[in-house]
């Protein structure tokens, strides 16, 4: 029982972080960023390069991941998404662009970092074993703690900083924000950069535990979509809730249904579909986004 709880919290925290960036971008620009998982992978590879290969301190490598992805995100928004949104008659067209970007990142990652699974040295050794009721390696506890810290930091940033408030205004109502004097273009770019940065950050954090390989991008994106949907698209608290719920669903499902192995995920997916059919806006979303 305690183990399920611990697994749930650990999974939930990392999922919530992945979902946060995606939901932020969605809230701001109504873009379903298919390339989010690839950004996460890219973040992982940057940390791998600096920490695992070049031997820099982990924190510096993590910062490098954040900065790289933030810059990349800003450029992508400015030169790709913004013009396409301007020119397109239906905003769903950005999905093709996002998918193209996902392929593009996949290609770049393959060419630059290769096809192999990569890992970095552990940041902390040892395993916490509380009487076999909770078994949790220390590095996971640390990463989980850092993830929660980042989530809290992000919420504080969104609540209290000037940028955060502008972003929230923008997410709520683009036109109203514009009337209020928010520089919509500038803040869209900043928002996208922050969303990408979050992906890079969580990629960098998780590379210490799960390692990284070029195939992780697509599935990560899909998982992140699911979390966002559970919580409600474009709602920050919803993304966190969605991440934690999915984390717990996996932890509980795998523990309870393990003898029916093949159908654990089937059940998770089906219940997700039923849930969404009954409550399309997710837990906290506005109806019809």
């Amino acid at each position, binding site marked *: 029982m305690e183990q399920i709880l611990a697994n749930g919290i650990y999974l939930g925290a990392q999922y919530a972080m992945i979902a946060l960036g995606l939901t932020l971008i*969605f809230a701001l620009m109504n873009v*379903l960023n*298919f390339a989010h998982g690839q950004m996460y992978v890219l973040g992982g590879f940057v940390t791998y390069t600096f920490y695992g290969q070049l031997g820099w301190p982990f924190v510096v490598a993590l910062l490098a991941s954040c900065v790289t992805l933030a810059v990349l995100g800003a450029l992508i928004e400015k030169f*790709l998404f913004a*013009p*396409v949104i301007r*020119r*397109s*008659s*239906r905003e*769903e*067209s950005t*999905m*093709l*662009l996002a*998918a*193209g*970007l*996902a*392929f*593009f990142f*996949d*290609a*770049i990652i*393959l*060419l630059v970092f290769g096809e192999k699974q990569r890992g970095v040295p552990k940041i902390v050794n040892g395993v916490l074993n509380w009487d076999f009721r909770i078994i949790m390696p220390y590095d996971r506890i640390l990463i989980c703690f850092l993830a929660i810290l980042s989530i809290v930091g992000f919420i504080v940033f969104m609540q209290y900083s000037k940028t955060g408030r502008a972003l929230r205004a923008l997410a709520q109502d683009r036109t109203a924000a514009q009337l209020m004097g928010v520089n919509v273009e500038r803040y869209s770019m900043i928002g996208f950069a922050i969303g990408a940065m979050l992906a890079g950050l969580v990629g960098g954090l998780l590379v210490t535990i799960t390692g990284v390989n070029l195939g992780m991008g*697509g599935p990560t994106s*899909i998982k992140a*979509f*699911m979390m*966002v*949907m559970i919580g409600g*698209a474009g709602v920050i608290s919803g993304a966190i809730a969605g991440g934690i719920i999915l984390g717990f669903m996996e932890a509980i499902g795998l523990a309870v249904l393990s003898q029916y192995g*093949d*159908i654990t*995920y*089937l059940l998770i*997916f*089906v219940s*997700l*579909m039923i849930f*969404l*059919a*009954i409550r*399309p*806006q*997710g837990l906290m979303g506005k109806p*019809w*986004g």
Partner: protein
Amino acid sequence: MPRLSMIQWTGLLVFLIAVFVLVPAYIAASGRTDFYYTLTSVALLSIASAGVWLTFYIGRINIGQGAFALIGAYVSAILVTKAGISFWLSLPLAGLFAALVSVLIGVPILRLRGVYFAMITLVLTQVVTLTALALPVTNGAKGITSIPLPGEISVFGLTVIPDFAGLENPRLAFYYTSCALMVLTFAAMYRLVNSRLGHLCRSMQQNEELASSIGVNIAYIRVIVFAISSFLGGIGGAMFGSIAQSVYPSSFQVTDSVNFMLNCFLGGLGYVFGPMLGTLVLYFGWDLLFELGRYQLLVYSGLLIILMLFLPNGLLSLRIRGKGVAGR
């Protein structure tokens, strides 16, 4: 009810000649027989994409066509291998079964809009894949293999369709069959879009509330359209199963669902023939870039991004506005 203009008749004729005469002639002359399969794939994938396009036409982003293609492939494979019925009978049955499933699923989920519908269909693809892995009738992970080729159809002793297994070149037969299906599909689509149902779809795409206020039973039309869409997916999937002579849970996956959607975007959501062109460019493009080796994906995705940047409304938006096929 629009009558076809002279130019449109000519266009249609040229298209038919190109597909059924010029392409085979070119392939025979150049010896590029591998194009048969590639173009067969394009034809079949564009049928499934046409279904997705239709759901776009009522304003729904459908990332679940892979699920229906897989259902279709399995239904046909099971009917042919286990029940021993003719492939040609299993083909419409596969489509109908996919349509039936889509009605059952569609009733609750079609109320959803925007990304919500997109996500639920995305999950649907995975559900069907996992179900195929878990069920005994689909033979689980081992898939269904060694499916016989389509047999012959004869009416009063006259062979209408020959036994594919006895043909010297079954690829050519599959090419003709698939192209014929594609032509039928798109003719029907064109007709549908320009008939009352199409107009109602358009009204729903633009404003569902207003549409229901003028007495349109939007729930009914959504289900009808989703069923047609899934029918096309099932047909496409069943044909593929027959060509590969095998079906696995991984025969159609989330990637395929996403690709079907991308085909529509690339061709242009406002044009009936968009999915056909989109499929051709996306699928054939990949094959043409085969020479690039390790740079294939890089160049492919790069071109995709550039296309999107300059033609965000699809390739067909290059046409002069107002002359769009769907009658923008």
